[in-house]
């Protein structure tokens, strides 16, 4: 009864009837693929965990080459539950990107980018790019050996961009080499710039989802129109979402307890690079692709051409809603499904080759 009293108190002042009407009327389609609707929510939940644990880490973290490693070490050894917070932040980041990929491909295969949801897809694609940027910038922050050299290799890739490559490299590194200046600006990107831009895209993405509702895949739309079945968003879908969130929370706890995120050795810019240096797993398929590209293709640098091709592929991927003409007409496009399957298999195969056969 106290909750009702509180609601009435707020309602008298803010008129929540619009929101409550929206929540009452909002429904989620129920069909054999509706399970996949929950993945986006899990990704959002993990992002919230990242923000909360990130804020806690900020209380002790010091973004300088002299102190970064030691401050993370302090968090892990001397701060109460610091080891847990850092481990959850590290595992949470990886799980978030993992679920983001699943969310993106489930959306893709269900052709949820069709009209009128093109902007939802585009904002989601930007959110994935932002998440990868979060991963790349956050990886360097503990200032350990692996992160140092992975960042060195990663930022070197920027240098092969024609014309502006060197300027991009200087912008990313804050100089010619990966130094304390790189760490400071990566910290700035990670805790200020990226969260701000992400918040903007996230709000747009969520508003679009709420305004347009969930998309029914074209392969099921005929059947669905004949026999529509749905559940209320609040509380039915929310409760199912909550189950998913709790399971992911449990998984995070298990990972943090059994496989605590190691800190490694402090970065030494003068040391030689360790053998078999790799970027984070979500960049490995790109890294592996570059390995197979010959040094020269015709008279062009193979690496530059490959990076150019990857950039084109990313742009095409972002604008897929406009390329899938059948999708625009609410028809199922087999070609785009095959493209998606090939891409998923390519990512899995190259990642596996890099980890198990290289």
């Amino acid at each position, binding site marked *: 009864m106290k909750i009702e009293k509180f609601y009435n108190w707020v309602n008298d002042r803010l008129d929540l009837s619009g929101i409550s009407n929206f929540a009452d009327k909002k429904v989620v389609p129920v069909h054999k693929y509706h399970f996949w609707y929950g993945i986006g929510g899990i990704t959002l939940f993990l992002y919230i965990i990242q923000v909360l644990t990130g804020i806690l880490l900020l209380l002790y973290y010091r973004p300088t080459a002299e102190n970064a490693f030691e401050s993370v*070490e302090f968090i*892990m*050894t001397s701060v109460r539950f610091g*080891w*847990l917070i850092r*481990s959850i932040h590290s595992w949470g980041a990886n799980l978030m990107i993992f679920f983001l990929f699943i969310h993106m491909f489930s959306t893709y295969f269900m052709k949820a980018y069709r009209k009128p949801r093109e902007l939802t897809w585009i904002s989601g694609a930007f959110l994935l790019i932002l998440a990868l940027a979060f991963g790349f910038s956050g990886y360097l922050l503990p200032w350990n050996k692996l992160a140092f050299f992975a960042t060195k290799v990663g930022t070197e890739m920027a240098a092969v961009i024609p014309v502006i490559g060197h300027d991009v490299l200087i912008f990313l590194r804050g100089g010619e080499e990966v130094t304390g200046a790189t760490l400071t600006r990566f910290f700035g990107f990670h805790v200020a710039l990226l969260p701000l831009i992400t918040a903007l895209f996230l709000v747009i993405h969520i508003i679009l989802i709420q305004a347009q509702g969930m998309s029914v895949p074209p392969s099921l739309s005929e059947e669905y129109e004949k026999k529509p079945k749905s559940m209320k968003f609040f509380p*039915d879908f929310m*409760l*199912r979402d*909550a*189950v998913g969130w*709790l*399971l992911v*929370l*449990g998984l995070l*706890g*298990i990972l*943090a*307890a*059994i*496989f*605590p*995120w*190691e*800190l490694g050795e402090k970065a030494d810019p003068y040391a030689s690079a360790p053998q078999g240096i790799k970027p984070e797993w979500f960049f490995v398929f790109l890294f592996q692709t570059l390995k197979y590209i010959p040094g020269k293709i015709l008279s062009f640098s193979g690496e530059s051409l490959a990076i150019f091709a990857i950039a084109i592929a990313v742009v095409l991927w972002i604008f897929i809603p406009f390329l899938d003409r059948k999708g625009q007409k609410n028809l199922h496009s087999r070609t785009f499904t095959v493209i998606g399957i090939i891409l998923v298999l390519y990512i899995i195969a190259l990642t596996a080759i890099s980890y198990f056969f290289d």
Partner: protein
Amino acid sequence: MNTRILYALITLYAAFPCFAQNSGQPNTCINCHSELDPPLSTPVEQLEGSVHSHAQINCTGCHGGDPNQEDPELSMSPQKGFIGRPDRLQIPQLCAKCHSDALYMRNFDPNISVEQYDRYKTSKHGELLAKGDGNAATCASCHGVHDIKRTDDPTSPVFPTNIADLCGLCHSDPDYMQDYSISTDQLTEYKKSIHANLLYEKGDLSAPTCNDCHGNHGASPPGVMSIANICGVCHVIQSEYFSGSPHKAAFDDMGLTECEACHGNHAIQAADDNMLGVAENAICVQCHDKDSDGYRIAAQMRSVLDTLVHKINNAEIMLSKAQRAGVEVKDENMTFTNANDALVHARTQIHTFSLDKMKESTDAGLEAANEALSIGQQALKEVGHRRQMLIIMVVLTLLVAVLLILYIRASEQKS
């Protein structure tokens, strides 16, 4: 006055042919020899890139003659100081004309040493050469002839990583060495040593090679009494401990070659704890009989050392277990480092051959190792607590998830 100065300059020129530097005028030695067939053209190719070429010392610096004359008769005239191919027995003096002249050599390097020739005369090579032995090594044998490089040039035959093979060219050749009654296995033996391992495998250019123990220009076998001093150049503390130990006088009396008696010479291996003690392969039992004090002390020293090693190994296992389980053990590693430092010190103190002195280090090491061990145990306990706590939290989370699922099912049935 001017005539006197001119006269003095001419005399100086004649006395020090190396003053004949390349003045930029045409060099007829180079011009003619570069057009001849090998081997007469080879020196021209070799000279290019040599240290002398860089310093603009031309052919006349060593061979005399006049490079400004077009006519070979004049340019290679004895009246112009031409000596042709220098006599092998005279090479050290020829090089010394410049290299022993501090004033002249200062033009190229203010810190360069100029005592090579004096040292050479004291060397075994110098002694043999003085006796007219043309097989004895001279400057050119090691440094090369026309293609002489700076000693810090990795392609120079006297760069640290090339020296052993250079010496081996003669000293590993049984035919060449047969008149000198010395063995020819030094190079093979050296290549098996810890010193060679450090130099070639680890790339440590400060690791000793032939010349570091035998000297370079003054090369000779170290005397029995001077071996400890030579090893002591690098192994300072061991050498000091040994000199203050009862073994010093005993070794001197017995004519034993100090360090070499236990560690060997060219094939010297990394010191091992097994050298100490009374086991069959230990060095101590080679002199100390079973009932002697030395035997008893050797056994005790080995026992204390083994206890410390064992304790440190246990602490290391414990700490690495904790580290793998995600507990950062930085401070604990410091304690562990202290224990290891004490072990290194104790191993060095073996050279005092005093159980009491060695125990000072082993006791400190044991204390640090015990502390690291106990901290490691605490860290592992902490890992256990963390896991228990998280398992409880995960179980609670899953329980809430199950309750939610049951609630959803119940509400589905109701609707």
